[in-house]
């Protein structure tokens, strides 16, 4: 099941904050099943989606990441019973906050992916990566990431 490899000019950096019981295991399954998907994603494994502090997401954008995925167990299936319920509320509020500040919500994706849903994992990653590739570099944050770039002495040509 290998895909045709295409070269692109811009390869986005994607980060995924995932819960270890469901989504991480799902991604693991995708790996052991030798499924192909876009390699742009870097994962951070947390015990539960409820542990994901929106501060991590802000920090990810500040460090130059072009797209962020947050994923956990389906509601009702959380290993700690309720973590994902809190995450759901928190993320709803956080999305609205980012939107109000003018940060493009297309760069932030939320999903419920269980340990058996390896195929869904690959689909979510592929679709998101393509979308971010279309959108390009995270322009607003790109300017901010290196706040003093314009101070660096220009090298003599």
């Amino acid at each position, binding site marked *: 099941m290998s895909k045709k490899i295409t070269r692109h000019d811009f390869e986005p950096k994607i980060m995924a904050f995932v819960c270890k019981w469901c989504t991480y295991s799902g991604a693991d399954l995708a790996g052991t099943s030798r499924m192909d998907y876009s390699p742009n994603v870097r994962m951070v494994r947390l015990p539960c989606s409820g542990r994901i502090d929106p501060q991590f997401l802000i920090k990810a954008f500040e*460090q*130059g990441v072009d797209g962020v995925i947050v994923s956990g167990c389906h509601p009702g299936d959380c290993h700690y019973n309720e973590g994902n319920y809190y995450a759901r509320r928190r993320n709803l509020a956080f999305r609205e906050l980012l939107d109000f500040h003018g940060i493009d919500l297309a760069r932030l994706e939320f999903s419920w992916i269980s340990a058996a849903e390896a195929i869904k994992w690959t689909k979510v990653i592929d679709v998101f990566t393509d979308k971010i590739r279309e959108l390009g570099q995270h322009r607003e944050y790109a300017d901010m*990431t*290196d*706040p*003093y770039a314009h*101070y*660096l*002495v*220009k090298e003599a040509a």
Partner: protein
Amino acid sequence: MKTATLNQTDIGKCLDLLLQSEFRVIAPQLRPRLESPDAIDVMMLTQIDSGENHAVGQGVLPLNGVKEFLFVKDEPLFAFENKGKKVLMTEVHHDYPKTVIFGVRPCDAASVSSQNAVFSKANAGFEDPFFTKRLENTTIVTYSCTNPDMSCFCTSVGLAPDSDRGSDLHLTEIPGNRLQVEPKTPAGEIVAKILEPLFQWPGEPQARTQAGKEAQDKITRIRNSHLIKGWLDELSNFDDELWERLGEKCIGCGACTFMCPTCHCFDIVDENRGGKGYRIKFWDSCQFDHFTLHASGHNPRDSQYKRYRNRFSCKFKIYLDKFDAQGCVGCGRCIRDCPVNLDITEYMKEVDLKASLPNALQRDPDFE
């Protein structure tokens, strides 16, 4: 240095002439009003690109002072990068454009010498080259005040609404919608030469002195300040009851220190991302609770009133001791901006009262 007069309506043209002469021009402008019924008219010194829409001479004084153009709110000192086992440090390139700040009020102009005292080798023994180079390339055109408001108190600290301390080119409103123009320094002369096409001669020194006097008479906030340093020098007054009584309501927001034209505390941090970064200098405030926090966990100024005590002492004693410079210029920004109406002139009044009491009575605890 010959004085001249200028029509007030020609100020826009002055700004244009300066822009054409390749100066970076900073002048007061009315900020566009936010779409909110609560918004108040706010005037700020900003970089302009045309002489239209300036607010020179309007209002009392701009929200910000000249501090942010000389002692900037944040700047990188150098860049660094990991290269194998070594760390490579590189210079950062600052611009020092020739600048005219037009329409500075006398209190702000006087504060420049206080800031310079802190950052120049002569007084402080160590030079901040970013500041001194910026100051070298800056010309300050002052505009005397005609309408001080109830928070202004420059006359209580040895200044006046028409003071020319720190000014390179001094403008004062005189009758007939005109301005008296007085070059004070060689830098001011250079600017005056550029604006000469708009001048008329001769100047009118009497009208100018009269205008200055009229503005001084409008100041209502008057305090005696000549006994304050002596009282602060007396070590036993460090524990006086007035500090806690007056400073209790301070919430430590720091607004006063950031808006104060003479306050100059700064912090330095290293910020990096993946092995590359900058060392950055930016504004700090003695009103923050961790300002004097030691690594051991001990904090000598652990209550807010102690931090305000430090601020007051800094302005009226420490500046004079360490830098031989004026600590407070009486602009009144700290009074206007304080959310809880903590008023430095209340402190001045109370200290003066205590300092005026004869010594024997001061020491008697039963004296009412």
